[in-house]
Structures are given as structure tokens and as C-alpha cells.
């Protein structure tokens, strides 16, 4: 196998071809027990300690459907604007693999629980792109293989493999898009935005934490190119298990460039599975199968059909939480900000924090200002996610309250936040310990103002002559003298009053 791949530049690729994508996302549900047995789904347990005859595929053992799993699937289906099947069955997907105890996966085939929906996703510039959803179906996860003795944990060259069936039978929802057309050069961006929006939806529904780094959400990127948007679809490649938002975008981009190189040199794309490599941002061919896999699907005879009543579906629909896009649009209107502003807030992972800060009593503008300014910078510098900073929305709200009461000015407030982040205590404790109170005593201020006027007679004259803007220099002098603990607006008022000038 060659390790280098011919690529054409992204711009050239897009000049000659139109990309079509299909995205398949697997979400591990956060149910307490597995899909077809009562075993725990807790992560991190001793290998094979969370197993039973059913999830080990013992002779005679039978599955029983997890009702919460069905409910979660219905929730996801409704949130993705899907139809919910009135009657559907599980199906067996037959293939041999050691990490699959029964050597078939209990899944759904031609009767998915949810189908024909869409998800509106927002691109960086705030534009909305509608991704059509083909289906969402229920299935079970496989166990985990660890290959020992070979290089880099791959099966090739391994002396033996270890199998952990704790994950076998954990409920999965597979969400499959219809072919995504019309995205053009923005296809990789759409892919990323789709997976991000889907993750937000899943989290908002509370059916999974959807943490991609933990494998709770995994994405397969199917991609093909065609000469023009009206031509029929080209042959696709299937890049499996792309496990971060950034990787989704990069994988799509890489495949566009690779396909274009193959096609423009007269070659043909092989329909194959490909692996994405985080380090190089490239994909390599998976095992080429000599014959097409035939899964011999048939309806699972050990399970009765699932028939969610319409009343129950409507009950679930009525209880759905506000979905992320609607929520963002509502907040955007409430706060009077632009779609791009909102985009940066979501990208920074600040939305929930800002809302929580507002809920704790802060005004929207201040909450936004702190989280997207000082705190975002601090998070960036320390390379930690915003929500992992050592400050709570309630504490940020307290700082804004102190500012609004005139107890702190912005400069002091920054120091308070710095203190909280450094673990010096609550905002009030930091204020006390560092002695960071605004000097609001007019007599103390008055003395400082008098001194500033006396020390800068030329500037004072200019102000007297009507050049109000020159007051800034005197304010600066007062602030310096009070070590920043004065309210700048009040200082300016005092200066103008003493010099007998009315504010223009």
C-alpha cells in the first residue's frame, strides 16, 4: 500500500467537481442499562464485568427491548423532524466478528423507527443549510477488541486479541442523512456544522452526553464527486469513525481532493472503507473486501414489533425541550446580536454559560462581554474549555452586580475575575482580600481632582476654554493617583463641575 496520496488543490477540485456527501452518525444512548438486557452501561468497569448470558450471546439467551431506548429514539426522531413509524421491527445484520457475541447485530433494516426528517444547521456566516434526514434507527453496540503484540495495536502482526464485551449491547441510534447536495465548496463546513448541530440536539434532549472524544458519538463520512450538480452520483468512499468536529471537516476536504486527483487523472474511485488519521489529516484505504459484504438482513424473530402509539408519540413531542437552533434564534433576537456573533458564542461553547449567568441575575450584555472577552481569553491562554474554568456563572453574575452597583469598575472587575480564577475565593472575598473597592467618597476624590487640576494648569485652561475632550487626561491623572479605584465617570463629572464647564 502506498503511503502518499495524490491530491489536487481544494480550489481546483471544486472547479471541476460537485461533491455529494452522506453522513452516518452513531450515538450511544445514555440509558442506565443495555439495549436488550439489564447489564450496566457504566464506562470504565473491569473488562467483561458488565455482561450476562444475553449480551454474551450464550446459547438459549434472549433479548428484551429497553423501553428507555425506544423513548430516546422517538425523541431523537421528533427533534429531527422525522416521521415516527407506527409499527417497526428489529432486524438481524449477520456477519462474523469476534467482538460481536451472537455474530449478528440486532439492528433495524427497512423499518426504521424514525424516517424522512431534516435538521437545519448554521454555517460560520450565520447562513442556514437544511440537511435532509433519511432515517434514524436503533441498534446495539459491539464489544471492543484489543490486539496485543503487533505494532500500534493493529490486528496485523498481533499475537493475540483481548475481547471486552462490556460495550456489547449498549444502545446506539444511527442517524443517516439523505445525500447532501448543493453545498459545493462548503461541503466540509456543512459536514462539521451538521455533526455539531446534531450533537447539540442530542445533548439538549438529554438522551446522551454525545462526547465524541469518548466515542459516544461517531461519524462516518461518505463522499463522492460528480462532474456537475446535474450529473448522477459518482462512486463513494466511506471514511469510518471520524471522531471530532474538526476531523469531520478535514476528512471531507481530504476526500474531495483525493477523489478529484483520481478522477482528473482518468482513474476510477473504488467503493471502499477508509480510515482517517488525525495526525496527517489524511485517509487510507481499509481492508479491501474481495466480495461485497452480504448482511442477510431478516426480521429479528426473538423480538416483537415496536408499535409506538400516536398518543405516546404526541406526549413525547409535547415534552421536548426547546431545540438548540430555535433557542439560539430566540436569544439572538432577545439580545439583539447578529448571527455571526451568535456563531462565535456557540463556537466558543459559551452559550449555556452566558444563559446561566443571565439566569443568575446578570444583564445579557455584561454576561456576553465577560464570557466572550476576559474569560474566553483566559480559557484560550490556558487551553481549557470555557466550562472548565474555575469560575461559575453565578460568580460572573456577582461581578457584574458589583460593577452595576458602582462598587467596581471594569478594570477592578477584571482583577476580581483574575483572583477568582486563581482560586483566591469568591468575588466578594477577592474584593476584600485585594482591597479592590472603587473610591466613591466624593471628598477623597475631590482632593485628588483638585491636585490634578493644580498639577496640569495648561490642560485645565483648555477645558475651561470649552475643549471638554481634554478632560480625559485629567481623569487619567486622577485614576493613577487613586490606583484605579475611582469611578471614571464620577471623576469626569467632578472635573467639569470644578472647572465650571457643562458636559457637551
Amino acid at each position, binding site marked *: 500500500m502506498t503511503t502518499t496520496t495524490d491530491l489536487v488543490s481544494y480550489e481546483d477540485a471544486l472547479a471541476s467537481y460537485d461533491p455529494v456527501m452522506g453522513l452516518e452518525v452513531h450515538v450511544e444512548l445514555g440509558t442506565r442499562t443495555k439495549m436488550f438486557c439489564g447489564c450496566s452501561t457504566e464506562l470504565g468497569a473491569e473488562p467483561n464485568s458488565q455482561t450476562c448470558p444475553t449480551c*454474551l450471546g*450464550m446459547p438459549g439467551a434472549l433479548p428484551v427491548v429497553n423501553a428507555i431506548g425506544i423513548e430516546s429514539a422517538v425523541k431523537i426522531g421528533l427533534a429531527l423532524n422525522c416521521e415516527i413509524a407506527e409499527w417497526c421491527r428489529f432486524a438481524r445484520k449477520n456477519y462474523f466478528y469476534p467482538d460481536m457475541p451472537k455474530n449478528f447485530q440486532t439492528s433495524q433494516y427497512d423499518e426504521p423507527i424514525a424516517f424522512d426528517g431534516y435538521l437545519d444547521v448554521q454555517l460560520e456566516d450565520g447562513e442556514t443549510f437544511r440537511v435532509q434526514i433519511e432515517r434514524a434507527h436503533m441498534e446495539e453496540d459491539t464489544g471492543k477488541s484489543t490486539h496485543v503484540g503487533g505494532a500500534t495495536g493493529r490486528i496485523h502482526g498481533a499475537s493475540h486479541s483481548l475481547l471486552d464485551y462490556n460495550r456489547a449491547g449498549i444502545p446506539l441510534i444511527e442517524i443517516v442523512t439523505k445525500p447532501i447536495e448543493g453545498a459545493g465548496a462548503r461541503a466540509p463546513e456543512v459536514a462539521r456544522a451538521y455533526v455539531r448541530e446534531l450533537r447539540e440536539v442530542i445533548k439538549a434532549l438529554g438522551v446522551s452526553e454525545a462526547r465524541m472524544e469518548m466515542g459516544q458519538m461517531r461519524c462516518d463520512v461518505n463522499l463522492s464527486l460528480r462532474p456537475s450538480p446535474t450529473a448522477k452520483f459518482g462512486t463513494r468512499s466511506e471514511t469510518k469513525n471520524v471522531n471530532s468536529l474538526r476531523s469531520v471537516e478535514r476528512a471531507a476536504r481530504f476526500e474531495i481532493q483525493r477523489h478529484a486527483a483520481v478522477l482528473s487523472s482518468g482513474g476510477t474511485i473504488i467503493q471502499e472503507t477508509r480510515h482517517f488519521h488525525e495526525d496527517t489529516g489524511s485517509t487510507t484505504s481499509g481492508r479491501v473486501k474481495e466480495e461485497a459484504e452480504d448482511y*442477510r438482513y431478516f426480521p429479528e424473530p426473538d423480538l416483537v414489533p415496536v408499535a409506538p402509539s400516536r398518543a405516546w408519540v404526541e406526549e413525547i413531542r409535547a415534552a421536548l425541550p426547546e431545540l438548540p437552533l430555535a433557542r439560539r434564534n430566540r436569544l439572538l433576537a432577545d439580545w439583539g446580536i447578529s448571527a455571526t456573533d451568535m456563531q462565535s458564542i456557540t463556537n466558543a461553547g459559551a452559550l449555556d454559560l452566558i444563559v446561566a449567568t443571565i439566569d443568575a441575575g446578570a444583564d445579557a450584555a455584561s454576561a456576553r462581554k465577560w464570557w466572550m472577552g476576559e474569560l474566553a481569553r483566559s480559557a484560550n491562554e490556558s487551553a481549557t474549555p470555557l466550562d472548565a474554568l474555575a469560575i461559575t456563572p453565578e460568580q460572573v453574575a456577582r461581578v457584574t452586580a458589583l460593577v452595576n452597583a458602582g462598587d467596581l469598575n471594569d478594570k477592578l472587575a477584571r482583577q476580581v475575575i483574575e483572583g477568582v480564577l486563581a482560586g483566591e475565593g469568591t468575588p466578594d472575598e477577592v474584593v476584600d482580600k485585594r482591597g479592590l473597592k472603587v473610591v466613591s467618597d466624593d471628598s477623597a476624590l475631590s482632593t485628588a481632582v483638585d491636585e490634578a487640576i493644580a498639577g496640569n494648569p495648561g490642560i485645565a485652561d483648555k477645558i475651561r476654554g470649552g475643549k471638554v475632550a481634554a478632560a480625559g487626561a485629567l481623569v487619567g491623572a486622577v485614576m493613577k493617583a487613586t490606583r484605579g479605584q475611582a469611578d471614571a465617570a464620577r471623576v469626569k463629572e467632578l472635573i467639569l463641575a470644578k472647572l465650571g464647564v457643562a458636559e457637551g
Partner: protein
Amino acid sequence: MTDIIKLTAAETAAKIASGDLTAVQVTEAHLARIEAVDEKVHAFLHVDREGALAQARAVDDKRARGEKLGPLAGVPLALKDIFTTEGIPTTVGSKILEGWIPPYDATLTKRLKAADVVILGKTNMDEFAMGSSTENSAYGPTGNPWDLTRIPGGSGGGSSAALASFQAPLAIGTDTGGSIRQPASVTGTVGVKPTYGAVSRYGMVAFSSSLDQGGPCARTVLDAALLHEVIAGHDPLDSTSIDAPVPPVVEAARNGSVDGMRVGVVKQFRGEGYQAGVVQRFDESVELLKSLGAEIVELDCPSFDLALSAYYLIAPSECSSNLARFDGLRYGVRTGDDGTRSAEDVTSLTREAGFGPEVKRRVMLGTYALSSGYYDAYYGSAQKVRTLITRDFERAFEQVDVIVSPTTPTTAFAIGERADDPMAMYLADLCTIPTNLAGNAAMSLPCGLAPEDNLPVGLQIIAPALKDDRLYKVGAAVEAAFVEKWGHPLLEEAPSL
């Protein structure tokens, strides 16, 4: 001692309850009988002498403490080796599970234990319940107690032979296409395939999930009913289990009657391939029913002619998937793991060595029938036939209360006679398969010996789904009339071994 083993289960339970016999005495008598005859019959794959005696002692202790005993407490039973038994080998008649000790009890096993039924051991069967003669067992064939050179039926030949040779008064079978009824028929015993979903399949090693059904085997209709009541009932561990009360089968068995009942005779259940003596005894049975007050109605069920073909697509398809788990990786025999071979190769070698020819034939058939491009023509069409058969039954049961037929077209054939001719073997289930496809209930009970070979003939009674009690009502009436006519139960004519 000879007397104990000839008792019915109901009589045995009564004697234990009254103190005339202890459960240990009863168990010892049956263990002695097994010791004496099973070398010839080969009904058991595993005898759990210690476990059985311990269970029996527990029953005697209960009685000594004055605790109330269940209706089958202390009665010995032969369990088909397809149900898991914690700590006791379960092979399903296959080499691939040789030495496997299940870590859990099947729901049926649990129910038997809870009812204080004494499990003597596990009985021989066609490998994975695939066969009609028990010749497909990886552990050698079982002889028919009426003639040890003949087959005891299959797949549950071990259970039927154990009953007919008085090694146990009760047995458990499973019926996917006739594996309870056909063995009952050829051994002169009683076997019932309950309505699909009546008896939990949890812990019953699957052959064909949508057809498999466990059920009671006994020497009398009442004994079968008592056992039916113990093993049937809803099980939350089996999604296909019926969530409804068990029909009043014991009450029906105690009040046998066909007076005023409409009994159907299906024209598709006769003709070519039916042995003359079988047809003769069946016709006599119909006359008997008439004389007991039943009205006989001729029925036409045209789709029944397609049942065998549909069955041999559906059952192999499901089995090809159900048996995929036997890969040697987690349990059972593993072949070829010498440290150089891949898991894929070891799986291949294990299945090659572990499965017998009939299992391989069906796995291949099913794999083919489910493959893309053939699914609609094979599996899809077979499911349509299944629907047609169900409709034929529905129409029939608008006109009649039960249907009767011969259980199997011939009496017991010789061991080896059909072993190389799968099609001839499959014909043994001609009359039993429609019931499995439709999911309703059926019983086989003895209706005499065929004049030409003096071997037992079985009468099949078929009832609508959930009306299992009708089988017992009709069966008890027929049984009583025959015993009166013969002057004794049919099994008394069997050789003494």
C-alpha cells in the same frame, strides 16, 4: 420397584403426598431403571444421579415439615438436552457444545425446580433439534423401546424413548416442526406442542426462533396437562412469551369430552406416502370420535401442501443466524487454535469440526435463502405461505373446534433407513409442520398399533392458538375410550426390554 416406574405422574405425586412413597424411593426406582435399560435404549446423554436424589430429598424434607407439595412434587422428569441447566452439561446433541456447563438455568428449568419436579438428566436429540429420528445426534442414536432397531422419532427421541421405556413418567420436548409430536406418535406416548409463546424460550437453545416451542411429554393426557401447567406462563425474559393466563388444561384433562364438538378432517392430510395401517387407525379414530358424539367436518386447506417447502426455507434461514454464535471463541469446543491461526480461521475450523452434516446442510440452505437477491424469492415467499397457512387455519376454525389427522404418515422406520435421504426424512413432519408455521397448539396421542408392523400410530389433535385446553378435553376423551376398548394403556403391549 417395577410398580413404581409404571405409575403415572399423577399417581406418583399422590403417593408421595400421602406418604405411600417417598420422593427418594421414586427417584431411586427410576435411576435403577435407567441403569438397567438405558445402555440399550440410549435415551439419556447425561444422568444427574446426585442432583436428582438431592431434589428428591428436598421434597421429602418439605413433606416432613408439613409444607404443602405441588401437584408434581417429587415426580421424576427427563429433560431434553436443549434447555440450559446451571452446572449440568447442555450439548443440544452437538459436538460443538461438548463439555459446556451453562452458567444459568432456562426459565423452564427454573419452573420445574420450583415445582419440585425431580430432573433425572438430559435426553438425547437430533443435533440442534434438526431431524426426525435422533440419528443426527453427535452422541449416537436412540432406540425405539418398541423395537430397538427402529427410530424413536426426532428430534426429541431421547425424551419419548425415556417415557416409553419407563425411565421417567414425564419428559420435556421442543417442537419446531414436529419434534414433540412425531416422537410421541412413534413411541405410543403423549406429546403436546403448546401455542407459540405459551412456554418460555429463555434458555432453550434456539433452532428456529419463530417456530420453536417447548412442551410437555408424558404417557397420559392428564400427566401432560399437569406438566403443561407447571411450565407454561408469561416470562418477561422472553419477548414472544404470551402475557395471558394459562388455559385451564388440567381441568380439561380431567373432564374429557367430545360430545357436541365439531371435529375437522383435512383432506390434505392423506394420500400418497401414508402407510395403510396409519390411515386405518386414523379412520377408526374418526369413527370413535363420531361415536362419542362429535360431528365430523371435511375441510380443505390448500396451502398446507406448501407447508413443508415454506418450513424448509424459514427454519434453515433462522438457524443459519441462530447458530452463528457457535464460533468457539466464548464457550464450547474450539478447534485449530495453535497460536498461528486467525480468529476467522479458528471459527471456520471449529464449525467445520463441531457441526454435523444435517446442521451444515441447513446452515448453508438458510445462508443461501437469506442472501441478497434471493431473499424475496425464498424467505419472502415462505413468509407469504406462512400467512396463507394461518388463514387456512382461521377459516377452518370458523367451522370446527379442533382438527384431527395422523401425527406422522408412517410408523417408526428403521435406524439408517432414511439417514441418507433428507427428503424422505423431512416427510415425517408433513402433518405437524402447518401448526408450527401458524403458531397454534397440537397434541399427539396413541390410537393403536398399525396392523402390518405392530408399531404405534399417533393421532394428532390441533386446536386454535390459546385454546390449548381443547387438546386436553378431546385427548382425554379419546384416551379413555381407547383404553376401555383395548382393556389397558397401549404401552402395556410394548416389549419389556
